[in-house]
């Protein structure tokens, strides 16, 4: 960004600054900022011990472990396979590549409830993939494993879409040079490719993790929602609301919001790191 002098706004010949910014701030404030701060203010109706009890009851703690644990695992799996998919889409030419490239965004476009019931049908014990897995003794639907499958599904596009443009810009000559200097494929990947895509990969990983941690619609159908076993944190909030335990629901929501804000800051820092790296490489 260019340096801004001491005044709030630099002079410009273009009109509409006050109208556009005023409208933006009004809309943002009324619809997003005030409602979000209401959540934090609402928790002040609880005393500190009440708040602590609400966010550390065994059922809630079990849900954190499941939500954040499964999200982390799903994001890791997506980091590996997302990089693989991005690599295949960028480097190889095969029939139907464009269609596959477009279908990667399906989890963004498909409503979560539809994804939820479809995954449940596929992974239920009599489902297309559930039946062969059940024969192997692996139960997916209505277990924590089902939660993981749903979170892998909804997180898939993030890593692909952050890594893909970096790979597209990467010069093939670098790899070829590494190869001709005697590096093996693994060495080339670890020493040449991975360092280049790392900022984008971490951004995609964090985005996938953040999305998975808050996910609701695609999970609740396949999870089975057994307390202490396969109950995710967003469902705890809904359950508390249905019992009219508003302060309790809000307390758990504040924990989740705090985690999301930390993740958002991480994502912003990673993205600016990625941009700087990218700009450096372009100029070299």
């Amino acid at each position, binding site marked *: 960004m260019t340096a801004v002098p001491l005044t709030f706004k630099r002079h*410009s010949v273009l009109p509409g600054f006050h109208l556009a910014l005023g409208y933006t701030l009004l809309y943002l404030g009324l619809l997003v900022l005030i409602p979000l701060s*209401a959540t934090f203010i609402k928790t002040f109706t609880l005393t500190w011990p009440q708040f602590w009890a609400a966010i550390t009851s065994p059922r809630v703690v079990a849900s954190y472990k499941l939500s954040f644990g499964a999200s982390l695992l799903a994001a890791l799996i997506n980091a590996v396979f997302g990089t693989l998919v991005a690599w295949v889409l960028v480097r190889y030419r095969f029939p139907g590549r464009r269609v596959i490239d477009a279908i990667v965004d399906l989890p963004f476009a498909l409503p*979560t409830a539809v994804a939820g019931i479809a995954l449940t*049908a596929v992974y239920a014990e009599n489902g297309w993939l559930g039946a062969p897995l059940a024969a192997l003794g692996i139960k997916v639907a209505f277990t924590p494993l089902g939660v993981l499958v749903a979170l892998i599904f909804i997180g898939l596009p993030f890593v692909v879409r952050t890594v893909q443009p970096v790979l597209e810009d990467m010069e093939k000559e670098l790899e070829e040079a590494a190869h001709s200097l005697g590096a093996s*494929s693994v060495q080339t990947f670890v020493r040449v490719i991975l360092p280049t895509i790392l900022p984008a990969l971490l951004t995609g990983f964090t985005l996938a993790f953040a999305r998975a941690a*808050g996910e609701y619609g695609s999970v609740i*159908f396949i999870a089975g929602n057994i307390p202490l076993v396969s109950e995710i944190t967003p469902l705890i909030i809904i359950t508390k609301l249905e019992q009219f335990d508003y302060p309790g629901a809000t307390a758990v929501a504040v924990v989740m919001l705090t985690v999301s804000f930390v993740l958002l800051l991480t994502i912003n820092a990673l993205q600016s790191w990625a941009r700087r790296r990218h700009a450096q490489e372009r100029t070299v």
Partner: protein
Amino acid sequence: MTAIAAQLAPAIARRKAIAWMPITLAALALVYLALLLLVPLAAVFIEALRKGTAYYFQAIAEPDAWLAIRLTLIAAGISVPLNLIFGVAAAWAITKFDFRGKTLLISLIDLPFSVSPVISGLIYVLLFGLQGWFGPWLAEHDIRIIFAVPGIVLATIFVTFPFVARELIPLMQAQGREEEEAAVVLGANGWQALWRVTLPNIKWGVLYGVILCNARAMGEFGAVSVVSGHIRGETNTLPLHVEILYNEYNFAAAFACASLLALLALVTLIIKAVVERRYLKEQR
């Protein structure tokens, strides 16, 4: 001669070994995508038609399904244009002027994406619900927001809030200000510069943001579920209708309604791919 050949042999052998890599990697990526994305997508349509086409069309033509479709269209019809106007205003303020706190403003606009859908609904319950800040006042004046259509619209606006803005900001940043500045110096007013110069330049970006915004608006489940109250024929959107049918074990009807949402997702992906290609062509 033979000495050189002997020296080159390991390198040639490596090249041959590498030739297997692309095939293996591509096969792995394609199998992964097929299992994770295509199988559930196919399951939606096959489950929908399990009881035959007559049953399928009957399930879609049912009055409750129609009312759910109508409410989904109303919610998207209000929230998408509002977020479009906001997106253009925010992008104009952010990209055409230099002012303090711009980076913070961009982060705040992205905020709704990092909030769990369940919490996106909860915040409006805390404001407008019976126990909320404005609850008693609203009840006195007989205005219903939560468990009614306005709440559904508010929750939909929140979850789709950043879509248009985040497409337009990088696009308008890349296009710079010279064209608008030239128009204004030549005597155009701000609205003319916006309509005749800016909007024609960003039309693909606008379309792109609008279709993604619309797909999410029509498919939103978690946030809408919290504020809806699930009153059949009154506050049910199509995704909520799918959930009700599914929980009543009416699977064929649930998947029939879900197939409409899956079609919407496919149309969204097709338009998105076409817009991307058009845009790339115009760039060249």
